[in-house]
């Protein structure tokens, strides 16, 4: 009986270690304490300077919302580098959310952030150029939390 209880205790310990190991591979974000809403495109380096500089490993949540405040599923968060003409548009999830974090070197560049919308169901189809197939967000806003 004593041996069985020892065995169970060891199994429990191994189980706990495996659970902790598994948890360690995921990224659990701390609950956001700051929130800004942008109705116009904004300059990332200026507006999020403190968020990036003070805590560069902090997750920043971007959420694209319509004028009623409802999330726009699979909206696109567009980042444009004014110096070198670079452009990246990331597809958000079904809640219109994208999770990012930035390293300090990005503060040396002027990066403008926009939101775009594509027709639902055709968001990944290669039918037309990005500029013609997507429309800039109008009357909505980008909610930024960190």
């Amino acid at each position, binding site marked *: 009986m004593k041996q069985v209880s020892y065995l169970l205790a060891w199994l429990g310990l191994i189980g706990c270690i495996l659970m902790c190991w598994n948890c360690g*591979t*995921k*990224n659990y974000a701390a609950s956001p304490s700051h929130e800004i809403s942008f109705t116009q495109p904004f300059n990332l380096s200026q507006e999020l300077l403190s968020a990036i500089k003070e805590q560069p490993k902090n*997750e920043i949540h971007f959420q694209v919302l319509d004028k009623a405040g409802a999330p726009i599923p699979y909206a*696109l968060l567009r980042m444009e*580098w004014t*110096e*070198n*003409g*670079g*452009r*990246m*548009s*990331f*597809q958000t*999830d079904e809640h219109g959310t*994208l*999770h*990012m*974090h*930035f*390293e300090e*070197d*990005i*503060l*040396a*560049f002027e*990066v403008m952030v926009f939101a775009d919308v594509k027709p639902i*169901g*055709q*968001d*990944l*189809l*290669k*039918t*037309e*150029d*990005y*500029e013609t197939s997507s429309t800039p967000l109008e009357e909505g806003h980008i909610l930024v939390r960190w």
Partner: protein
Amino acid sequence: MTAFLTHRYFVFTLALALCGCTDWRNQDPFSASFGEVDITNDLHHRIKAGIFQPNKEPVTLLVGTKDRLNRRFPAPEAFVRFSWEGGTFWVRSGKDARVNVYLNKDTIFGHVSMAGQAGTLGVQRDFFEAPYHPIIQDFKMLVGSGVL
């Protein structure tokens, strides 16, 4: 000798040996190029051949992790590093372990490197012809719903 080769034990042993040589662990959605992706090098030949159209088609990344036996699994909600001359930042993959991003030509040729967290995570380009590619899934959905 001929009798031995046609013997059923020989055939059985040969079948076992062939099964042993097959690397079943590679029967996953990841190709051999699992790791860091330089998007310019990765897409150069596809753009030249006309099978990737920058500004129309998104770059779809499949993010994965591997265990000690080198078995690879999709990694949902894991961060991918984007690094180029415009700075460095990290983007979290979705529940399907993918990051979809549209890049213009300046960025496509800007040697953007994309990588997972060191040691455990890797990324690869998820190409259009793969049956599990989200573009194909969208297409199937549109056909099924009668839009196309």
